[in-house]
């Protein structure tokens, strides 16, 4: 985690509201329920994550993926249950970064790439303080990590889809996040851009960052992730990809809305009407 270490060595302003509890999982979710008037979005969700794990969160539209992310990020309060980050409620930690769906961002907002990445530093700046030279250095560095150093002055509306996604990952780095939640970062990207994102995710894994990635492509979840969480309002299965993505579990989660294709590599699942821009709305 060279980048983060480098940040920490010199940064005396980091506000650790709570010290990390030794040996606690980076993320612990226990008996979590979220109910809307229309019904339960999340039912009795419990799981734990060790630091450095890359977890794919898959499930049909309306399965509660976005809701789960918002609760973990501390943006939405659960109806019941608890979320712990390093053994503490998420309120005290600013080490969680939420990378929004691209469709939820106002791309005409008058800011450039460096401005957006700098927003990740604001949790570390005191009131009335403006970013200092060192903050800008961190921003430049974070942009270089995601291969966008040359685009720092570009207006955000002029970026390609892959660049928009990489900009938000750079912001998570500038925030010194240890847990990054990505809401469908691959949706709408072409193969090359998706590969670009995966190269960065591999890099983040080497730095010890823990990642939760909501996605639709089950094959990609099986091939590129350590763990898979199959969600359909409740946890259908969680664990190693081959165990989770069994045809029984997939039928359970997707019902009839899924075609299973037998290939040389195993079972390939194709979701009907997959990859819509929107997710369930609260």
């Amino acid at each position, binding site marked *: 985690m060279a980048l983060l270490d480098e940040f920490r060595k010199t940064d005396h302003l980091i506000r650790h*509201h709570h010290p990390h509890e030794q040996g606690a999982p980076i993320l612990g979710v226990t008996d979590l329920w979220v109910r809307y008037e229309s019904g339960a979005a999340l039912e009795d969700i419990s799981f734990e994550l060790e630091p450095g794990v890359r977890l794919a969160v898959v499930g049909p539209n309306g399965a509660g993926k976005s809701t789960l992310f*918002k609760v973990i*990020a*501390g*943006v939405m309060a659960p109806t019941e249950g608890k979320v712990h980050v390093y053994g503490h409620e998420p*309120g005290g930690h*600013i080490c*969680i*970064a*939420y990378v*929004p769906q691209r469709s939820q*961002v*106002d791309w005409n*907002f*008058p*800011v*450039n790439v460096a*401005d*957006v990445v700098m*927003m*990740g530093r*604001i*949790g570390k*700046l005191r*009131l*009335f303080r*403006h*970013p200092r030279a060192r903050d800008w250095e961190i921003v430049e560095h974070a942009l270089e990590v995601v291969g966008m150093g040359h685009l720092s002055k570009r*207006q955000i509306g*002029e970026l*390609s889809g892959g*660049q928009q996604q990489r900009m938000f990952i750079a*912001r998570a780095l500038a*925030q010194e996040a240890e847990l990054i939640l990505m809401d469908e970062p691959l949706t709408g990207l072409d193969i090359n851009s998706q590969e670009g994102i995966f190269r960065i995710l591999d890099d983040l894994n080497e730095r010890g960052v823990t990642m939760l990635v909501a996605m639709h492509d089950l094959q990609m979840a099986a091939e590129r992730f350590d763990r898979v969480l199959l969600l359909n309002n409740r946890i259908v299965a969680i664990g190693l990809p081959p165990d989770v993505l069994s045809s029984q579990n997939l039928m359970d989660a997707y019902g009839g809305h899924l075609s299973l294709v037998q290939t040389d590599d195993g079972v390939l699942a194709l979701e009907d009407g997959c990859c819509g821009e929107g997710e369930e709305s609260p």
Partner: protein
Amino acid sequence: MIDWILAPLQYGFMLRGLAAAVLVGVVCATLGTYVVLRGMAFFGDALAHSILPGVAIGYLVGGGARGTVFWWALLTAIISALGIGAISRSTKIKEDTAIGIVFAGTFALGVALISTVGSYTADLTHFLFGDVLGVRTSDLWLIIIFGGLIILAILAFYKEFLVVSFDPILATTLRLPTRLLDFLLLILIAVAIVVSLQTVGLALMVAMLVTPAATAYLVTRRLPVMMALAATVAAVSGVIGLYLSFYLGIASGAAIVLTCTALFALTWFVQSIRRRFILRNQTARLRSD
């Protein structure tokens, strides 16, 4: 030409009017960038109308004294801002419906109160459309103090307002007090409305918040530039509008707002022609990406 510009300046009311129009324009336009970026135009319009009962009470209590009207208006504006904010958060009624209910109800109450006075029509017109040429030195001081406070708050909380406006979820994960910041913005808008009561009046107020900021939004890509440009557009509109008012005998508030609108229309026209060329280049660049 020089005479044409200098002639009105020999009148004290014109100098005070110019000062008020420029100051109010700069303050409202700077704050207005957030109103435009966060889609709060309807809220601003409603809030301006909903302070009429406060203006009316101040008017009745103070027997027409400007200072009393100002303080009552300020009190009502802050209460209305917080009230609308609370209603739209806590019921299942959609925000714009809640705003509509509060806005029309309070406005009607204001009209009812003012209608108890004999010289009803003249006074109402005054509050609704402003009277910038009637600005006194004491009014100018109130504009300078409260306008200055608004600008200070925008500068002091610049980075916090930026994050809350662009990405509220990030603001929450960074532990920024998002609710407090949202309320602060509502209060700043409320104060801006009261400050510009005399210049353009309640009915045209929303134009000062929205039009110069929207004009700047068309041509800039960074927030500080947008603020500076919006302030410039508003100041220029204030000056041109007052001269138009002086020479053509048009109501001053309407003249200022019409100048803002004309500048917006001109910018929009030039931009839409320019965009055709830019768009062509952009598609080429995205393809090669």
